[in-house]
């Protein structure tokens, strides 16, 4: 499955490391990531992850991070994941 996740983060120097570490350790691969600084000094991070695991295994862990203010799963798609895997295989 492929999932698009949107995070709102406290602006801390190590916050992106925390998110990336948890994502890797819990068995999710990031295929795309963008980050913007909001006017209220929070960070918005949007990323796509793929995994055979259910997305709640990741979102519950991300939500536990103290610098994660909000965590939303925007979309989940099996078809998108298959397309990604196919593209990676042919690359």
């Amino acid at each position, binding site marked *: 499955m492929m999932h698009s996740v949107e995070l709102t983060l406290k602006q801390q120097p*190590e916050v992106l*490391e925390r998110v990336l570490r948890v994502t890797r*350790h819990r068995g999710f691969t990031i295929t795309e990531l963008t980050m913007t600084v909001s006017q209220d000094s929070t960070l918005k991070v949007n990323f796509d992850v793929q995994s055979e695991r259910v997305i709640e295994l990741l979102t*519950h862990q991300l*939500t*536990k*991070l*103290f610098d994660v203010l909000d965590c939303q799963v925007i979309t989940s798609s099996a078809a998108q994941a298959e397309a990604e895997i196919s593209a990676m295989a042919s690359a």
Partner: protein
Amino acid sequence: METGQKMRGADAVIKVLAAHGVTTVFGYPGGAIMPIYDALYGHPVEHLLSRHEQGAAFAAVGYARASGKTGVCFATSGPGATNLITSLSDALLDSVPVVAITGQVSTAVIGTDAFQEIDVLGMSLSCTKHSFMVTDINELIPTLYKAFEIAASGRPGPVLVDIPKDIQIAELEYKTPLLTVNEEPEPEVSAIEAAGELLQQAKKPILYVGGGVGMAGAVDHLRQFIDKTGMPSVATLKGLGAIEHGTKGYLGMLGMHGGKAANLAVQACDLLIVVGARFDDRVTGRLATFAGNAKVLHLDIDIAEINKLRQADVAISADLRQVLPALSASLESKSLELGQWQLEVEELYREHQWDYQHPGDLIYAPAMLRRLANKLPEDSVVSCDVGQHQMWVAQHMWFRRPEDHLSSAGLGTMGFGLPAAIGAQVARPDATVVTVSGDGSFMMNVQELTTIKRRKLPVKILLIDNQKLGMVKQWQQLFFEQRYSETDLSDNPDFVLMASAFDIPGRTIHRAEEVEAALDEMLSTPGPFMLHVAIDDAFNVWPLVPPGACNSDMMDQMEKQT
């Protein structure tokens, strides 16, 4: 905000500790934390010098687990901080509230590979509940307050605060921060009702009790729930002590080295009530077959544990001190029909009693530990290391409260027992504290004998010696064609002679007839004592659920090892 006098950051650190009721810190000084040690000098907050930072942090873990308070440890930058990592990992997996404070090189040289500089904040990400590096003196006090709040709230865990040296010597005006303390979530009425319905429908419910009960301070609430419902129960390694031995329907530890009755009852249940536990693989065996016919009611403060490994039919992520009474109340007007199931559980209990008969003159460790449990006074703590002796303690010693049994459960860290016992003895100076160790584990933090000597701590050391890394060798015997790779420890040192070098008296016993008097001597000798016990090395830990097997497929045999 309260305003106060001007002081160095280092002095503020000690003042914050005192404000949190910290009376003892465990640690080891070094260059980058010298201002904090200077602030400690002559201060009423006492410091216990370990002889390795891993020992200091394990002492903080033992202190926390034996007392329910937050343990605190100090280390310097670089190697001091890296030596904390194992103990912090242990605290993370066993949900122990610890605040670790590390010195760091000054902010101006961070990132220049300065002397004793390592990226401690980066290292801490995977082994703490949360971590901070303070780079602004004005953030120092609020950060420390947050560290204590995070360590002890929700699912507890270790928090590291890395403080550069220039922050320690910078001046600030002490202000007590106003922090909003998050209350633990209350259970929703609808969830309690749904749980009550599950309970009422069940014919064979059983409580699977984990360490979360003790950490939540919900032992009495659980016992009241059991009193009221007559619910059968089993416990994890960390859950031992939450239910007193002899409680009707309580079958002891489940899992890989659990009792047969406990495992068979769980496999037969139709409702598994998981209380502060997390479906650890050492508990479940093959997950797909674990309590395979049961619905699941999962009660845990950490929502990330819900549905992580086993889908719950009803889950409540809230404070167990509220959940358990609410659940009892929801059953007020309803009747549970457990009579037949209680009889089945009683029959399992009767059928699978431990057998302490052991032919021959050699010392049978399970029988010795059973005798020790009978001799211990009410206020006692047993701190284990990791391996066969750890499982024998869990199987054969019975505990009155979870805080009386310290065992490295999640991380399984050899070397835990001795420093954790030191922390427990500091936390509970009037308690009889016994560390039960093995000849492998004991050598992992043996330097902490000096800490016992320095403080004249009356820690009793029961060293069970089979001249091997017993648990690894048991697996080599069973699953690796008896290829005993690097598990022979027949060149062990003379342990009693070694203890004497630290002014710790002791003796060695070899024969079963010596056990009774030797245990009495250990417990009655004032101050520390080492009882070195050469056991029958032919005996392994039984029963055993082989890796990947279903919990009903327990191996139970006695084989002479070669």
